[in-house]
């Protein structure tokens, strides 16, 4: 009798506690729920760069890809661009690529920006925000590290503050 009571009470309290804990957990992670998760396959996409060349993510399988989302008006994006540019040149022969996805600005604005910083890596524009939607991008900038199997290794939100950080990223996805 006494044991049964304790058991019933414990079970009910545990159930209620679990429901409360789950609600709290879900509430605090709701802003961080990403379309793309670390360890999972990165969604495939095809976008055209400024030279009219198509880039499909799945074509890069076997090599690492640093996928950066940016816009010309986004100051932090602008600041990290030179780091990406330098490290791209250092690692491009080691099988690591950089693809910079612009959020769908005009070609004029994008190529102007690209020229100003002498950007070497391919810049593709996401004209109708399909890729941004697929990757759940908000806010800018955001950088996805994709390994040679096409899986997401790391998601870096916000500005990359030092060039050494980019080097570290490149090392992570080097095939």
């Amino acid at each position: 009798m006494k044991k049964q009571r304790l058991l019933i009470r414990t079970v009910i309290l545990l159930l209620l506690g679990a429901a409360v804990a789950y609600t709290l957990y879900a509430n605090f992670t709701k802003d961080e729920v990403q379309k793309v998760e670390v360890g999972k396959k990165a969604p495939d996409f095809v976008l055209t760069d400024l030279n009219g060349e198509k880039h499909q993510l799945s074509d890069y399988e076997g090599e690492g890809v640093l996928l950066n989302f940016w816009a010309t008006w986004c100051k932090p994006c602008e600041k990290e661009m030179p780091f990406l540019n330098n490290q791209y040149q250092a690692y491009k022969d080691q099988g690591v690529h950089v693809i910079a996805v612009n959020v769908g600005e005009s070609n004029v604005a994008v190529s102007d920006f690209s020229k100003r910083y002498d950007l070497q890596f391919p810049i593709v524009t996401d004209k109708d925000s399909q890729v941004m939607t697929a990757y759940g991008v908000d806010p800018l900038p955001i950088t996805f590290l994709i390994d040679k199997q096409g899986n997401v290794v790391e998601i870096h939100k916000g500005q990359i503050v030092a060039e050494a950080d980019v080097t570290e990223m490149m090392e992570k996805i080097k095939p």
Partner: protein
Amino acid sequence: MNQVKCDCGHVNPHGTILCEACGKIIEDGTQITAEPVIDMRYEGSARRSQTYNKSIIDKVWNFFSSVKVGVWLIIVTLIASSLGTILPQEMYIPTIMPVAEYYEDQYGWFGRLYYDLGFHNLYSSWWYLLLIAAIGVSLVICSLDRVVPLYRALKKQRVIRHESFLQRQRIYGSTNDPVNDQSFELVKEQLKKKRYNIREDNGNILAEKGRFSRWGPYVNHVGLIIFLIGSMLRFVPGMYIDEILWVREGETKVIPETDGQYYLRNVDFKLEVYDKETDNEAFGDALDSAGMVAKNYQSDVILYKTKGNTVAGEEPELEEVDSTSIRVNEPLKFEKFALYQVNYKLDELSKMSFLLTNKSTGKTFGDITVNLNDPEKLYELDNGYSVQLMSYFPDFEFGEDGNPTTKSRVPNNPAFVFKMFSPEKPEGEVSFVAIQQTIEPLGNNEYKMAFNGIETKDVTGLTVRKDLTLWIIGLGGLIFMIGVVQGAYWNHRRIWIQRKGDEVWVAAHTNKNWFGLKKEIQLVLEGTEIKEPLDQLKENQVDEGEKD
């Protein structure tokens, strides 16, 4: 824990105040009530919370089982909820500066304090959610702790009750003169007419009706808990979606959260206002005082579904599903989604045209039209003239370093750097053109880009909504209301008529509406030899409902 055996032979759980079977007061040395009328709350059953207090589990259980604690939790939650309405919540403030600065800037030290205390995001703060959760836990435990013993006591009650139970009911009376069997038969008949369930034991009567109204509060609580579960499910990914979708006229956009399956084309956005001339003249005076009054916000849209699997970014093959209009409260529904008209932006710049003009002669050499969302790099004109667009800033401002930059990709304030080529100046002249502003960086130019008109487009703002929890919340609400009705419109009434030697005793109890019960007893006993019982709390005639 010891169980208590009553004189009548029934074994009651520890903590029982009134024997479940016969109603005799079970004395444990301290609980002898001196009141003339016994407390009938929960039938004097043993609320377990008040008796066991051994382990930590019991202590937690007992804390939440207290109605006092439950009421305090509700009061604290009410106060907290009202605090969140003093200043706007974070989600409603403009994103022009960091949140903390905004509060301080707008509301001074109070705003700063408000932010520091975390009230800017009160309704999803951990402590607020814990308060709500505690109310939910309290509801479950309070209900369980009361409904089980109450159910037991009402189920186990016997027809024949102990003398002390009957004498100490609020409504009690005895008839000392002999009562014939005819009177009993008549009473039974009249009780049946009043829809009482009658149980008999050795010539004694227990008439009862409306017992189910006692479950009203618990049904109500079940509804509330279902409601809370429904709101909790909103946090489960995929159950609840609330997103904004902006589409310009003529633009086709992917609808978020549909996995790239659905696209929406905005054909036309309309904002219609009431017109004095054409609308009902009764509106005339109101329109004079109010000015412009919106009559209709409408987006004419086409819904597409993609055919086959396309990779994101690839031009999808679209199949028209629906061509319709979205108005306020008339959403476009497809699958589990609904698109609601919630916002708009009129006259967003979409194209700008310029005339290449010789500054001194005023002669023009053709015009160019720049699509502000996708401008060309080079505009060829006749007779060896051309214009190159070197830079474009859709939402122009001067940056910190003094160079032109753009705030967004929306053409709110477009600015251009043109290079004008002419036979006289084959190497080109550079001109910076913004609205109402022209800068010639390399001194005086011979030519200029003269502004020659704009084209605008409307933009519609839609909400993409999917809510799989709504029916659960609705169900909870319905059950809640059923519980309220059940408890409010029916009363649980019991009348005991018992022979005690030569006397006939009548006692009655109800959970509310004593006046109605007394009236009913009057009618039931009419024409019989049984005397009408008295209200032992006559000086206190105020109707008191039983608290749940």
